[in-house]
């Protein structure tokens, strides 16, 4: 029985509140505990750990109305730090934002970072997040030396690459379903400054984009492409290719970069605002907010210019830019998820193997472009070899991420169509962003799912750790 009675709630110091992922769909009421010490309730009750709630879909949404959510963000103490090697041990609720604030001035940067810094270390492990450097460095889990978990029976287990290896591999990318991650030891990467050297280049179509990513990946630690989803036909896949690396001490301006100004979205956007023209206008306005973005956009937004002079490699801003503008452009807008209106949105992210190549990516883009109102911008990246972790998302090939405003059955149908293409190509979707994928489709995407289930069943035979997502995708009892 997952649901808590109201008297129980009160005596446990809990309240029932609506819980959703960053996409704001779906929403379920849960009993949210926000302890400073991470500990499972002794009564064996089902529970779902949740970090800062930046996964998009239903990964951190209660499995049933009133189910218990353990929010970890208050357990954010640093336990130890090795100044020579940059090895950090911390409680699972410590955020990347806090790591950047404390350790970047001392020359240490997260080894892997997703597109927002408002994520917890525990969440990064549970989703095995990847960043713009996946083609070179792999995902977050590669940099984790040790995890401390409180498993379903209440006992505390330490695991790592050489210790309880199976539990370790099931936990990385395991969406918080193997146990409560309480402590993480990870290796930070040394950097010489908080500035980035970034080059941007307009590319006229998908082929050029894929080639560009591949070429850039040989020399640059960070690569990413932005695709204009309103372009069709020969221009399909046109966009901007970005390459970045940490600036050396000599290249960096004196002193740390200025703190980003934070805007906030004060209310849910009405749906008419999502019409393509207005949305595009918003995107442009947003870019103008940032000096270097302004520069890049001003030079390259005129697509015809790019088409007329395909041979000329237009170089973007050569002067270093602040790290946050490169890694976290959207963090500058608080609650930007409200821009998609009250009904929320799905983010669709998939990866297709290199063998499937451009045709598969083109098919996905075409479907999205056909759907018209679906997405305005897609992010495209190269991924390196897949990790040993059973449920880890990335595999060697191309990943595509799109925002889809949630419009009920229509949007879900689009996702199922996209999934069919992904399955045919031998790819998979990212659970941290998924809210729709059917269990039979997911099973086809993840060949190691059975292995993962075996490990999970050993440590949590009754599936004490469960989420709306695990109910949907893995068939857990709500």
């Amino acid at each position: 029985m997952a649901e808590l009675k109201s008297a129980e709630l009160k005596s446990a110091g809990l309240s029932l509140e609506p819980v959703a992922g960053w996409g704001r769909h779906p929403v379920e009421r849960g009993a949210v505990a926000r302890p400073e010490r991470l500990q499972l309730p002794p009564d064996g009750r089902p529970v779902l750990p949740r970090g800062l709630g930046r996964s998009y879909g239903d990964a951190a949404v209660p499995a049933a109305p009133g189910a218990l959510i353990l929010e970890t963000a208050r357990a954010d103490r640093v336990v130890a730090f090795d100044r020579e090697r940059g090895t950090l041990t911390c409680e699972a609720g410590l955020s990347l934002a806090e790591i950047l604030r404390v350790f970047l001035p001392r020359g240490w940067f997260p080894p892997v970072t997703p597109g927002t810094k408002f994520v917890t270390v525990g969440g990064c492990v549970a989703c095995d997040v990847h960043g713009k450097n996946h083609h070179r460095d792999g995902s977050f889990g590669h940099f984790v030396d040790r995890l401390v978990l409180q498993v379903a029976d209440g006992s505390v287990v330490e695991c790592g690459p050489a210790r309880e290896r199976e539990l370790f591999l099931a936990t990385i990318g395991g969406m918080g379903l193997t146990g409560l991650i309480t402590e993480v030891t990870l290796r930070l990467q040394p950097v010489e400054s908080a500035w980035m050297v970034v080059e941007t280049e307009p590319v006229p179509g998908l082929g050029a984009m894929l080639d560009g990513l591949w070429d850039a990946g040989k020399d640059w630690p960070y690569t990413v492409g932005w695709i204009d989803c309103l372009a069709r036909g020969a221009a399909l896949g046109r966009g901007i290719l970005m390459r970045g690396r940490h600036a050396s001490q000599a290249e960096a301006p004196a002193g740390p970069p200025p703190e980003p100004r934070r805007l906030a979205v004060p209310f849910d956007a009405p749906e008419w605002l999502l019409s393509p023209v207005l949305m595009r206008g918003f995107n442009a306005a947003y870019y103008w907010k940032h000096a270097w973005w302004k520069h890049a956009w001003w030079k390259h937004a005129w697509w015809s210019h790019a088409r007329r002079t395909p041979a000329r490699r237009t170089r973007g801003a050569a002067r270093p830019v602040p790290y946050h503008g490169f890694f976290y452009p959207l963090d500058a807008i608080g609650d930007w998820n409200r821009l998609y209106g009250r009904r929320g949105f799905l983010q669709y992210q998939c990866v297709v193997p290199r063998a499937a190549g451009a045709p598969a990516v083109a098919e996905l883009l075409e479907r999205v472009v056909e759907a018209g109102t679906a997405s305005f911008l897609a992010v495209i990246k190269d991924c390196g070899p897949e990790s040993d972790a059973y449920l880890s998302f990335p595999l060697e090939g191309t990943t595509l991420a799109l925002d889809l405003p949630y419009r009920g059955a229509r949007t879900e149908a689009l996702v199922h169509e996209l999934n069919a293409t992904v399955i045919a190509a031998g790819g998979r979707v990212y659970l941290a962003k998924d809210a729709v994928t059917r269990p039979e489709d997911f099973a086809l995407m993840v060949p190691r799912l059975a292995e993962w289930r075996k490990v999970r069943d050993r440590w949590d035979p009754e599936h004490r750790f469960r989420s709306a997502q695990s109910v949907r995708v893995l068939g857990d009892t709500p």
Partner: protein
Amino acid sequence: MKAAVVGATRGMGRALARLMAERGDALVLLGRDAAELEVSARDLLVRGARGVVATARLDLAEPAGFAAALDAADRALAAFDTLVVTAGDFAPQESLERDPARLGRLLDVNFTATAVLCQQAAERLAGRGGGTVCAFSSVAGDRARQSNYLYGASKAGLSAFLEGLHLAYADRGVRVVCVRPGFVKTAMTAGLPVPPFAGEPDAVARVVLRAIDHGTPVVYVPPIWRWVMLAIRLLPHAVMRRVRF
């Protein structure tokens, strides 16, 4: 600043200790759970504490041990100049009504023990030329409300005590800061419905630290609560009886 902090492992105390450590204050963390104190001390050190960070045992339920704890703080910091007490007890009104022992414990910790500790520290500071005593009371002590007057009474007592301490020791160089938080989103208030004007621990800690630096006798956090409480204090009894907030 050389501060002894009671309650630095959790909530507002944790946020405040981080601010103080990062700007270079020397700290002694006082509390009853040695392991917790150790983790918090290490957290502060790794985050870049530029002064001393030490720990010593103090249990608010055992006033007999206060002198020893203050001695330990003095030894670690070569005489502390500031005492901060953020620790306190809290329980919902119903459980206090039901359980007299629980009520007694709460009154003891929030009023008796805190007053004894602050009095002792003030005397000690006055003896060596002055310093600051800062304790966390609550807006709940400003006006009794039917929905939480038991907790409120413990804090009303503490507020009155701190005001008196401020008056009595001002001439001897001891400054007393009475912090009156409204609703702050910490573990203590988890599960309570969040009212308007609720504050975050970090923002609150910044305001409190400024008050400690300036020796402000009474500080409301978030600051809007000064005006909210002014309005509530002005409500006549008849109105207070009818509005059940």
